[in-house]
């Protein structure tokens, strides 16, 4: 009797864990499978990215501009397929680390960031007492302060990169 009493709480907890898991797994199938960003008007999901209805409508408007006749339903599907293909290619490029390896993309990304810093400076969003150059310096210092930068090797035989990069 004593041993039965000792074992029963163990079995009970395992049984409860098992039931809980079953409920959890079944809820996956019972809850409607909504797309990511469904509330923001997503029409399609490709891995973790979504295509929103407004993006789709913009693509349709562009397509309409380049077509002589009226838009057919095959065209509507084609535009969605093309948007999906574009997203797949974007994701493939990101997996290949193209923003770092492809110099054109790298330059464009850096230019976009620098332009946004200059624009912020020009419209006075940044510190009004600072020039665009100072804003950039401040921005870079902020990035450096929050980063984990580890020196592993000498740059050349003559010089060792200092650990205090700033």
């Amino acid at each position, binding site marked *: 009797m004593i041993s039965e009493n000792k074992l029963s709480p163990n079995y009970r907890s*395992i049984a409860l*864990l098992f039931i809980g898991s079953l409920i959890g797994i079944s809820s996956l199938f019972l809850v409607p*499978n909504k*797309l990511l960003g*469904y509330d923001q008007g*997503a*029409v*399609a*999901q*490709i*891995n973790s990215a979504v295509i929103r*209805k407004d993006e789709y409508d913009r693509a349709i408007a562009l397509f309409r501009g380049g077509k002589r006749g009226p838009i*057919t*339903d*095959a065209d*509507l*599907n084609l535009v*969605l397929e093309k948007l*999906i*293909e*574009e997203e*797949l*290619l*974007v*994701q*493939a*490029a*990101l997996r*290949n680390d*193209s*923003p*770092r390896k*492809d*110099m*054109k*993309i*790298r330059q*464009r*990304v*850096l230019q*976009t*960031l*620098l332009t946004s810093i200059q624009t912020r400076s020009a419209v006075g969003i940044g510190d009004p007492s600072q020039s665009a150059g100072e804003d950039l310096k401040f921005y*870079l210092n902020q*990035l*450096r302060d929050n*980063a*984990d*930068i*580890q*020196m*592993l*090797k*000498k*740059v*050349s035989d*003559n*010089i060792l*990169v200092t650990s205090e*990069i700033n």
Partner: protein
Amino acid sequence: MRIVLALMGLILVVVGSNTHFQLTNYPPDTLVTVNGYPITQSALRNAEKRIQPNSSDPMNPDDREVLLQRLIDDELMLQHAEDLGIFTTDPGIRKLLVRSSVNSIIEDSRSEPISDEQLRTFYEDHKSVFQRPSRIGLKVASFLNPEMAKDTWEIIKKEVPFEVAIAETKTGELINIPSSLIPEHVLRRYLGSKLTAVALSLSENQISSPITIDEFTYLIYVLAKEPEQQLSFDDSRLQVKSEYRSRHRQNALTNALTRLRKHADIRVDQSFSHQLAQGSKKNDL
């Protein structure tokens, strides 16, 4: 039993979490890591080459240190751009990313050598592609008054040359069409589909009866017609090569997209697909 369940739970937590586990197997020539991303000696050397493309002298150590600092700052900005979602939201960058993917997919087909035999087989299999299309040379006059068009036509029937007859009536105007022989698709751009169809139905030296379309009436005079011609392999070698490469690239891209689709989780909102399908049904009716 409890240990097994606990391990399973742990595995599920690890797999389900969004945490990125930084592996420390950096390339052997890594100089610096920036938030776990390596900057290598070869990246520094490439940057040096970009700055001094024509110089064989090594950069001095101070400049090299400045350059490394620049690479670190660039990496910090790239990481910030990634966090801000600029890679995927900026339309210009998206376009460049797509182009980069396409280029890497078709790179192999670009450099692949093509043998003469491959080209000849391709030519034989796609002979219809390597034809010179039928061409036509013609003159077309337009009239605002259909009666004047008819009068001009009567004059031409009395063997007065086309242009002389147009000049005599002074109401017709010659449409500006190239005087050389032109293929059907080019003619369509000048005349539209209705007049092109009439022109193609005429034989050499034939003049059409007046054709009224909207507010204008036209007379077409066909000067010459050249039938479709099959180009020989030698005459079309360059075209064959270019077509072969183009189709090869297209196939490579199609295959790559099929592979990407196969490995991706793609879902279309059911109500949206339903809307598209309903539209198709309406059209069918």
